[in-house]
Structure formats: C-alpha cells, structure tokens
C-alpha cells in the first residue's frame, strides 16, 4: 500500500453524485443545430477555414490552430455550415464569441480516419497529431494537451492521471472510468510514452469503488505491455474537496509540493485528467478528433444522468433529455463550488463542459446577506493553497493589488472552500477573481505602454535622421555648385562676373526660403 500525504485544509461538502451514477452513459440524440465555438481552449482562438454554405463531414477540420498555445476545432457531425458569426457562449461574461453553426444532415458521414501506432512515432510527431485532433484538457481549464506534453530537458518521473473528481454533483469522470477503463489506461500508456515517465499513478477518490475496480482490472488485463517495467497503479485517495486540484493531487500522491509560480513539471510530475487520456487514445488509435464528451446533467431534473454529447449541442436540448423540473430557476455550468451560472440557455456545450446543474431555490437557496469579516480565520484553516484568504479579501476589496500579489494571490485556485466556510457569507472568490483580472489587465496595459514607448523613441530617431540626411544632401549640392562656379568665373569678363554674383545672391535667397519651409513642415 502506497503511503499517502495530506494537503492543507479542505472541506467536505455533500457529494450529491449518487443521483447521476444510477444509469450508464447514454448517447445524446443528434441535435437539430450545433453551434461550435472557435475558442474552446486556453490560448489563441482557432481560425475558421470553412464558410457558410460549405458541406462538412464528421471530424472535418473547421478551425485551424492559430498561435503557439491553440488547438484545432472540428465538425462534430456531417452537415452544412449555416453561419460563422458571433453567438452567446458559455462564459461568465455573457458576451458573444465566434461560432460556426452546423445543421446536421443525420448521415454521420466520417472523414477518412487513420489509426496511428504511437510506438512508431516520436513525441513531437504525436504532439502535432494531438494538436490537430483538438485534444485539450477535459478537467475544466481546456488547456491544449500538446503543450503539456512538450517538455524540455526536465525528466518526468511520474505521470498522474486525475480521476479524483472532487467537486460535488459531477460524475462524468466516474462513469467514464467505470465503463471505459481499458481505453483510459491505454491513453495513459501513450501519455507515459510521450513523456518518457517511469510510472503512471491514477488518483481516484475512495467514494468511487466501481471506478477503482474497473481501472485495476483494465491494468491487469492490459498485461505485459503495461507491466513490463513501467508501473501503472491506481491510487485510492481520501475524499476531500479540492483533492482533484492538480497541485493538491500531486501533494497527496507523491508528497511533492509544487512551489509557488512553478509548474508540476518542475518537480518531475505531469498531470492529466482521465477523460483527456481517453480522448488521446481515441485520437491516436482510432483517428477520431475530439468531437464529443461525457457530460453530467443533474440537479433539479427528473433523471439525472451522464450523456455522451457532441461538442456544440445546445444546453437546452441536453436539459430536456434529463427532464428539467418546472421550478428550475437557472443553470450552472461546472460544479456548485467552482461553476458559474449560464447567461442564457441556448448556449452550446464546449470541450470543457463537464456538468450542467439545473438550479432551483430549494437546491441552492440564495445565500444570506454578507456580514463584515470578523477575522475568525476559518478560511485560513481550509485553504488548500496555504494562503491567508482574509488578508487577500482585505486587499482585494480595498484595491491594494500590489499587496494582494505579495500575499500570493495567484496561487489561489478559486476552489471556493473559503467562501464555503465563511460564517459571514462573504463571496470571497468573487473578490479574488476581480483582483486577479484587474492585475492581469494592468500588466497587459503596461506591456502595451512599453511597446509604444519603444516605437515612439524609434519614430523620433527616424525623424531626426531624415532631417540630418536632408541637410547633408543640401550642403553637398551647394559645395558642388561653389566649386563649379570658381572654375567657371576665371574666364569671364567683369560684366559677366557681376551678373553671375547677382544670380547667385538670388539663388541663395531662394535656398534660404526653401530651408525654412522644410523646418516649418517638420514642426
């Protein structure tokens, strides 16, 4: 038995997962319309490469990755692109973003799929394939997986698969592990091969015994390929929120602490979600880009269940499948701790959408009005990042961003444990999010200002140089005229010489005038 470690703090909210794990993953029927956002991942948006009116096949590339941190976007089914325009998406801002609208033709005609034996390719080649298959982290952040596999000289000893799924209500990873453990383990082996890691540890919370058993069976069945010398192991970890945070999971399984401002790779560990491993396997072994994912529909519904749904499916159609109850007051995307209320119902699900919770007054009664902070430090006791939430709150609400940064605001993972225990019901995470985005905006402005300063200085130098060059040219011409005149005057009569001098004086006057004109224009 592996010795486990602890991270600081944590809370035990009611898990509410049982509702949605009673039935197997169902395939959501083909929706009437799909809206596929071109920016579903961290980094730069994909560039659309199809036009309205184009017929596309299932799996056809419709958005080309654009920039270093970017990922591809594909048509989730065959049909016709009806528009590429700005539409509301699932984002806390409620602002629209570029989406490709696809009307399915119901034929599900695939592009040519090519399966790849990963052992015949280098890590760099596989990274490119994953980028073009649109594989991003499915745990919630949507970070392009190829970037996480692009490690420099660091030696990765341990690959951790994150199957903790600590947030209440969500059960999509649990169901995926129960039903598709073999593919997950094979995906893990591909990731291990790409990172050249020594071992694969799959961390699963102890409230998912079926998933743990399924994974163990898959590893045993995988036989020699998985057990040769590289160890695959399922690690059962205690159920505590947020045990599924990457840094927290690494701490519990390996005892290593990822330092502030550093990445897990700096301590020789890399972490992927189990659903991401599954997608990696499908992308390479079956040549299927990321077109669908498992999503939990739960909360105030008749049949809470997990569905495998196409990216771009409108949330309304998914909610209708589970049977929303009449007193539903809104929808939350993600879990109750870290999720956000959806701005509208007809927004599409994206690669990072793991859960939709129908909310009602009964399930989520409105929080009581906040009271002033009494400095009880209960938030300090539960903070999994070892921060001082009450101080960060103080700095954020008084807009002292510099001091908030000194108190490691950016180590906050916005898990909401502090808000959960706050006896004054202060929306602490909202304050941290506000402070973080203000600091990011200021840093961005500063960068733009520095860029403008450099360009302005160059501009001034250029103007100066042009002026100098013009003056030099003028002086050279005058000098040449002078020498020519000297050579010419010796053979002239006195009358001719006098006429010449007069002419010269006039010319000099004109040049003077022209010069002052040039100065005038420059000013």
């Amino acid at each position, binding site marked *: 038995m592996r010795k486990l470690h602890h991270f600081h703090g944590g809370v035990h909210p009611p898990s509410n997962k049982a509702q949605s794990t009673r039935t197997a993953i169902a395939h959501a029927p083909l929706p009437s319309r799909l809206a596929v956002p071109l920016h579903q991942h961290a980094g730069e948006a994909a560039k659309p490469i199809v036009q309205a009116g184009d017929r596309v096949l299932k799996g056809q590339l419709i958005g080309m990755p654009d920039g270093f941190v970017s990922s591809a976007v594909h048509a989730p089914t065959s049909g016709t692109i009806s528009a590429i325009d700005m539409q509301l*998406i699932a984002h806390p801002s409620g602002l629209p*973003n570029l989406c490709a609208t696809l009307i399915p033709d119901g034929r599900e005609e695939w592009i040519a799929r090519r399966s790849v034996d990963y052992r015949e390719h280098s890590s760099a080649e596989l990274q490119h394939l994953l980028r073009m298959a649109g594989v991003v982290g499915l745990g919630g952040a949507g970070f392009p997986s190829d970037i996480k596999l692009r490690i420099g000289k660091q030696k990765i000893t341990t690959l951790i698969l994150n199957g903790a799924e600590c947030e209440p209500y969500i059960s999509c990873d649990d169901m995926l592990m129960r039903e598709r453990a073999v593919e997950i383990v094979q995906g893990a082996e591909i990731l291990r091969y790409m990172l050249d890691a020594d071992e694969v540890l799959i961390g699963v919370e102890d409230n998912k015994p079926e998933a743990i058993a399924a994974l163990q069976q898959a590893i045993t069945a995988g036989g020699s390929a998985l057990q040769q010398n590289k160890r695959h192991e399922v690690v059962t970890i205690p159920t505590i929120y947020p045990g599924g945070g990457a840094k927290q999971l690494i701490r519990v399984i390996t005892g290593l602490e990822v330092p502030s401002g550093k990445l897990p790779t700096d301590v020789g560990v890399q972490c992927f979600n189990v659903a991401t491993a599954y997608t990696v396997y499908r992308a390479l072994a079956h040549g299927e880009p990321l077109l669908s994912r498992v999503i939990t529909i739960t909360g105030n519904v008749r049949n809470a269940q997990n569905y495998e749904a196409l990216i771009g499916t409108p949330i309304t159609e998914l909610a209708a499948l589970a049977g929303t109850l009449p007193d539903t007051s809104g929808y939350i995307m993600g879990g109750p701790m870290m999720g956000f209320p959806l701005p509208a119902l007809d927004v599409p699900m994206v690669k990072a959408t793991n859960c939709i919770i129908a909310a009602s007054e009964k399930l989520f009664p409105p929080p009581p009005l906040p009271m002033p902070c009494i400095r009880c430090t209960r938030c300090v006791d539960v903070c999994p990042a070892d921060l001082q939430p009450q101080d960060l709150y103080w700095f954020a609400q008084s807009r002292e961003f510099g001091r908030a940064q000194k108190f490691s605001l950016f180590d906050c993972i916005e898990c909401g444990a502090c808000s959960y225990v706050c006896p004054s019901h202060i929306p602490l995470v909202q304050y941290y999010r506000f402070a973080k*985005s*203000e600091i990011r905006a200021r840093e961005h402005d500063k960068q733009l*200002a520095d860029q403008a300063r450099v*360009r302005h200085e160059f501009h001034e130098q250029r103007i100066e140089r042009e002026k100098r060059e013009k003056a030099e040219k003028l002086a050279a011409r005058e000098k040449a005229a002078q020498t020519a005149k000297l050579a010419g005057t010796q053979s002239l009569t006195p009358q001719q010489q006098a006429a010449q001098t007069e002419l010269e004086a006039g010319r000099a006057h004109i040049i003077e005038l022209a010069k002052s004109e040039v100065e005038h224009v420059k000013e």
Partner: protein
Amino acid sequence: MLSALLVMAAIATVLGAVLGFAAIKFHSEGNPLAEKIDAVLPQTQCGQCSYPGCKPYAAAIAAGEADINRCPPGGEEGIQKLADLLGVEFKPFGSDTAAPKPKSVALIDESTCIGCTLCIQACPVDAIVGAAKQMHTVIAAECTGCELCVAPCPVDCISMPVIGEKIGNWKWKYPLHAFAVAETAEATR
C-alpha cells in the same frame, strides 16, 4: 604638528580621489526621476498635456514645471500613481484638461482614403502603413488611440471607435453586494 597636517592632507587626497572616481563611475545619463515618471505614464504620446509626448511631460514634472493632473489617458489612477511616486497630494483633473475617455483605436475608412500620407506623418508610434496615393491602414495592435491622425486627414476618413468589452479583455467585476448590517441600519433609519 607637521605629521598631523600630512596625515590630514593624505586623508583629504584619498577621499577626494574616491569621490572623484565615484562621480565618474556612478554618473547617470539623463534624469532618473524623469525616467521613473515616464515609466508610469501611459505612453499614448497624444500631447493632451500640452507637451509634445510622454517623455517631455515626465521631464517637466521632474523639473517641477508641470502639474501631475494633466494626463487624461492615464485617468485618475494615473494621477494617483504619480502622486505616490512623487510623495505629493492627489490632484483632480483641472478644467483645462480633457476628460478621460474609454480606450479607442483609430480606424481608416479605406474606401475614402486618398493616400495623402498626412496621418502617417502625424502618428507618433508609426502605427499607420501606406504610401503616397496608396490606401493607408492602421495596425490596430500598435495604435495608442492618441487621435493625432484624425485632425490632419483632409477627407475625414479616420474614426476612433471605442474598443469596448470583448471576451478577450473582459474582467471580473467588483463584487456588488450589500452588507447585512448596513441593510438593518438602513431599515432602522
């Protein structure tokens, strides 16, 4: 007596040499205070402060010739930053300076542009490309929104649309909520 004088003279010579050396070694080009002020200014280069750019304004503040409340693009926050840097009181915008505006970026109506190059000459950060009798366009990413190109345009084809809120620059808002105590106090009143 003599030895004492010699010792004092020797010490004076050595110290003098050290100071002289330090003066050369640690000599700083330009005005370090002006540079610090320049680092705080938004670098719009718009000239709304009545100086021909951010650097001259910074030099004028450093020399004590200009007030800290003459930079509209910096906003009140910019004034606060300058006040903190210089250890002086915050001073609100005067009536002679323009009011701060939301950030905008120049946009050339390319069908109207006659290719006169006047805006190219006016741009302080070389953010407009084009040539004589050829269409011009603004490199939006480099434009500081200074509006200096608007006035010289003979056909008025440059507008300054506000950048506005997009997903890319969206920020979480300051949490707005009443405090329970404030509420009850309100009720009792």
